[in-house]
């Protein structure tokens, strides 16, 4: 059921091999299944985000990889080696915690040096490497401060430097930006991405914020109720969700349902919807029950001559919200309401409320989805 998605893996794999290979991993607390047996490959050098609402099992998955949580089923391989029996302190990767977990009685420098200190690295080497790490996270001047003397972003960067000091090939990040305000969070997203690119360290990043996931990730793994719902690039998940849940998680969608497959061609599939027959290109879902067609509001445009999917609608309302203009449309036969989002244009005339408007969307800008939304 939760087999890794062959398509999305193919897209990014190339010559990259999985650094972390998870097979049939399950975690059960008494009668609650936090993680239902799942497979996941984390590729060498990628920025993989595990995204899901609270209670979806994403943090449990991360804690299981780190070794804080014992799996009840399955295996975890790091670089081809089973690490199930490896104690936490001997796992070859490090964690950045949600509350940073900086040692309050140590300075920034001592915090960062900790990993080297417990490994018995000589002081001279240690100092040099700590300075390097502080340089990467731009904290050279604050090395002698205590964690309570730092701002949230500085604490976050200290935690990152501390996790990087032993040069792990993999770093696990558990919602590291959750405690920061919006502006700082955006800065840190960029910063994390840059550090990840330059260091080449594989990042597994847990978040519940879909826009954050889209911004930073090479690939996103969407989790829901302990299962992997879909894995793919941010673009994949946004434009080609395979379930109503994923479609809704990445923002509003027009859901055209019920929907039935009429014919499958080489590239294009014809589906019948209450709005007429539409063409979709892209992969077909395995499940054929309860199909719907999801179209992003910004994929809908006033139809020009060559749009292959067209719907005739009545304009219900037009609202100008700055950079965008949102038009609510009603399909006269079914009374379905559609939302269209277009870029505002100072010289464009808005369609009059009540007027007829032909809208269309591209076969590549929609996706067939299944499953329940919640």
């Amino acid at each position, binding site marked *: 059921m939760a087999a890794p998605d062959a398509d999305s893996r193919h897209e990014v794999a190339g010559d990259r091999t999985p650094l972390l290979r998870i097979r049939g991993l399950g975690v059960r607390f008494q009668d609650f299944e936090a993680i239902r047996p799942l497979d996941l490959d984390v590729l060498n050098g990628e920025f993989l985000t595990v995204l899901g609402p609270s209670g979806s099992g994403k943090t449990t998955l991360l804690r299981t990889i*780190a*070794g*804080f949580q014992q799996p009840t089923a399955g295996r975890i391989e790091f670089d081809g080696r089973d690490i199930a029996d490896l*104690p*936490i*302190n*001997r*796992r070859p990767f*490090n*964690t950045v*915690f*949600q*509350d940073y*977990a*900086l*040692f*309050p*009685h140590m300075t920034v420098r001592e915090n960062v040096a*900790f*990993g080297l*200190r*417990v*490994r018995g690295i000589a002081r001279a080497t240690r100092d040099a490497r700590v300075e390097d790490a502080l340089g990467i996270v731009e904290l050279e001047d604050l090395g002698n*401060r*205590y964690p*309570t*003397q*730092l*701002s949230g972003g500085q604490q976050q960067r200290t935690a990152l430097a*501390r*996790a990087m000091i*032993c040069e792990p090939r993999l770093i696990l990040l558990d919602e590291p930006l959750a405690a920061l305000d919006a502006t700082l969070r955006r800065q840190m997203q960029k910063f994390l991405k840059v550090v990840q690119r330059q260091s080449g360290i594989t990042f597994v990043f847990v978040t519940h914020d879909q826009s954050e996931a889209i911004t930073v990730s090479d690939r996103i793994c969407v989790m829901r109720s302990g299962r992997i719902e879909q894995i793919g690039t941010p673009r994949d998940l946004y434009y080609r969700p395979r379930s109503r849940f994923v479609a809704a998680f990445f923002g509003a969608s027009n859901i055209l349902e019920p929907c039935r497959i009429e014919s499958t061609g080489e590239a294009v599939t014809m589906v019948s919807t209450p709005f007429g027959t539409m063409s979709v290109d892209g992969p077909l879902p395995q499940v054929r029950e309860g199909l719907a067609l999801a179209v992003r509001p910004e994929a809908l445009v006033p139809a020009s001559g060559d749009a292959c999917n067209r719907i005739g609608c009545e304009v219900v309302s037009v609202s100008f919200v700055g950079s965008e203009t949102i038009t609510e449309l009603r399909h006269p036969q079914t009374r379905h309401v559609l939302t269209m989002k277009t870029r505002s244009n100072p010289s464009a005339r808005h369609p009059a409320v009540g007027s007829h408007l032909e809208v269309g969307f591209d076969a590549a800008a929609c996706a067939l989805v299944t499953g329940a939304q919640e």
Partner: protein
Amino acid sequence: MMRNRFIDLPLAAVAVLVYVSLYLPILLVFLLSFFSMRRGKVNWDTFSLSWYAKLFENDALGGALWNSLLVGSLAVAAAATFATSAAILVRSRPDRHSARLLEYVIFLPFLLPPIITGLSLLIYFREAGVGRGIFTITVGHTLFVSAIIYRIVLTRLNALSRNLVEAAQDLGATRIQTFRFIILPNLRMPLLTGGLLAFALSFDETMITLFLSGTDATLPVRLYAMMRVGFTPTINALITLLLGFSILLTVAVALVWRRNADSARKSYREGRT
């Protein structure tokens, strides 16, 4: 608030009365250690340190004081070790029944009437063939004061983020390194406060000690014994010395606390800017 002299005046009078009745006896003891007293009046011409000199000649009292200090230090050291281990154990598995049981076992001697603790220990030591002395008193006091240190240490451990231990292990620290570098440094203040409190409790514990002391009496037991046969003004000198010692200790602790609070406040302010 409206100030009303009809309320303020009686309140002030009550306050003065309370303070006088609290401190006058102490003041009296202090004065009597230097001066002699006739018919309820202090004779100011009789200043002398002779009671202090007598105190130091009196081997029984000096020995008892030494015993008290020795038992207190040993009991605090033993209780701190035991209570810290227990607190870490309970903290690492808070949902286990065994942890609950351990917590209960630690608190029981503190909650039981001392007479029961003392008597049971006495019977136990007699049956086990252990002679009464410093060792038996220390065991009794350790049992009694462990609960205090345990509570203070556990409170601090609970305030520490559980992630700290995980972070240390994640960075490669063994259990022993985690304890040494992460847990212990954060327990300095609670161990100091808990230790002082436990020492004070041990110092004036009488009931359990009464059952467990053989010839090596501690100070309260010795004083109690002396009261029965008669009163000597050396006791005034002794109490004055103890009073001075406690005041010094209290001030020292207060200073350490204030320095800690100051640096915390300072770092908070600097963190803001």
